[in-house]
């Protein structure tokens, strides 16, 4: 699943580790989500949405 996390992160000058710490997952998890290798659970998706003050569907893009 594609997502806008790298861009949203860059706008705020946050590192992957910064996002990981704020969301409560490992940096590897954020990296795997960003590269589309791993789809996060719903709780993590909601935490990301709260962090970036967006709706989930504004962060994650359905490719179908």
């Amino acid at each position, binding site marked *: 699943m594609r997502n806008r996390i790298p861009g949203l992160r860059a706008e705020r000058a946050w590192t992957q580790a910064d996002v*990981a*710490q*704020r*969301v*409560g*997952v*490992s940096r*590897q*998890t954020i*990296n*795997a989500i960003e590269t589309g*290798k*791993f789809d*996060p*659970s719903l709780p*993590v998706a909601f*935490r990301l949405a709260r*962090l970036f003050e967006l709706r989930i569907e504004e962060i994650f893009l359905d490719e179908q």
Partner: protein
Amino acid sequence: MPALQDAGYRDSIRATGGLVALTIAWAASLALARFGPGLWGDSRPAATWAAVIANLVVGVGWIVAMTRFLRAIDELERKIMLDALAVTLGAGWVVGFGYIVADRAGLVPVEADIAALPALMGVVFSVAFLMGKLRYR
């Protein structure tokens, strides 16, 4: 927000510690059950039964600790671990039943040691886990 990761980290450390402790206890109880009879002789079957039952009880504790560990770790780590466990279970299942069928058909000339199966599963798990780590690097 940092509290989120701190709490998760604490849970993960606690669960990992529990799993390590139970793994050591299980290995020790297994060694006692396996080598104990050689120490106290065949004249004390009650002691051997106690060692075997202790090993089973600690083993159940290890299963509970493993479940808690899987719940506590980071979700990507959990996926890598579960994928590796699935491959390990599949390999053990396929190789185990393959051996039984071949043995019953008289195709296996040598008597295999049952201890080879968990050793094989350990190797398969290690390789699968490493591949998972590399895949999501």
